């Protein structure tokens, strides 16, 4: 693989029922590529939490997953409200999610910490009123 493989997804922000579909597809694609289950699991979880966040906090966005010989890179980009205080958002338990989201099983403030835990590198850039871009890397070896 000299050229990285790229998978792109539009993440629909109107429908919570479909949230997570892109991550399901990525998991399928990575299994077909024959990556180690542990790597696939880490990529899937990190992306899944990020995808859910785009749906509940940002009205949807775009996801891109690149696979090369070294690592899997997940890029999540939205035009949502942005994150005012990233350090605070990264804390376990911090959440601005409404109760309706909590009753669906999310909104416990564990998403960003989970994304950090399961990726090897994570970088968040966010501008209030403009949107958020999160890049995560999981090294294959």
């Amino acid at each position, binding site marked *: 693989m000299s050229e990285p493989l790229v998978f792109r997804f539009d993440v629909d922000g109107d429908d919570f029922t479909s949230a997570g579909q892109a991550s*399901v597809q990525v998991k399928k694609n990575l299994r077909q590529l024959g990556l180690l289950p542990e790597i696939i699991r880490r990529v899937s979880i990190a992306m899944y939490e990020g995808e859910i966040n785009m749906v509940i906090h940002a009205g949807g966005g775009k996801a891109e997953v690149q696979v090369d010989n070294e690592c899997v890179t997940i890029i999540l980009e939205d035009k949502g409200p942005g994150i005012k205080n990233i350090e605070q958002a990264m804390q376990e338990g911090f959440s601005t999610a409404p109760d309706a989201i909590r009753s669906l099983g999310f909104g416990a403030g564990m998403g960003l910490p989970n994304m950090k835990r399961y990726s090897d590198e994570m970088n968040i850039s966010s501008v209030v009123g403009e949107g958020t871009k999160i890049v995560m890397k999981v090294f294959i070896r």
Partner: protein
Amino acid sequence: MTISTIKELLDAEVLCSEDSLSRHVYSACGCDLMSDVLAYVKDQGVLLTGLVNPQVIRTALMMDILAIVFVRSKMPTEEMLELANENGIAILSTDKRLYEACGILYSNGLVGNKVKS
């Protein structure tokens, strides 16, 4: 513990992936909070939950969870069953409550999973 033992202990109905009943699970988690599942659960486990929505199946899929037990006779939709079936995740439904169902499995030797830091 095999999935088929879980079915018997909980007097549960198997809704899909019947062919996976002989598989072994090594850990369990009783939880309605999917983010906690994503944070702490090990693979090859069983998830017991009272929450029924597509994200429960997707969460299990992300975590390589082998079986989901819906408590209090909750029934998943066709779409949820389809996704589970495609991925070989067994879906069980029991009329027991979450606390009771977890207690039964625990006292029969299926312990929880250690929190990894």
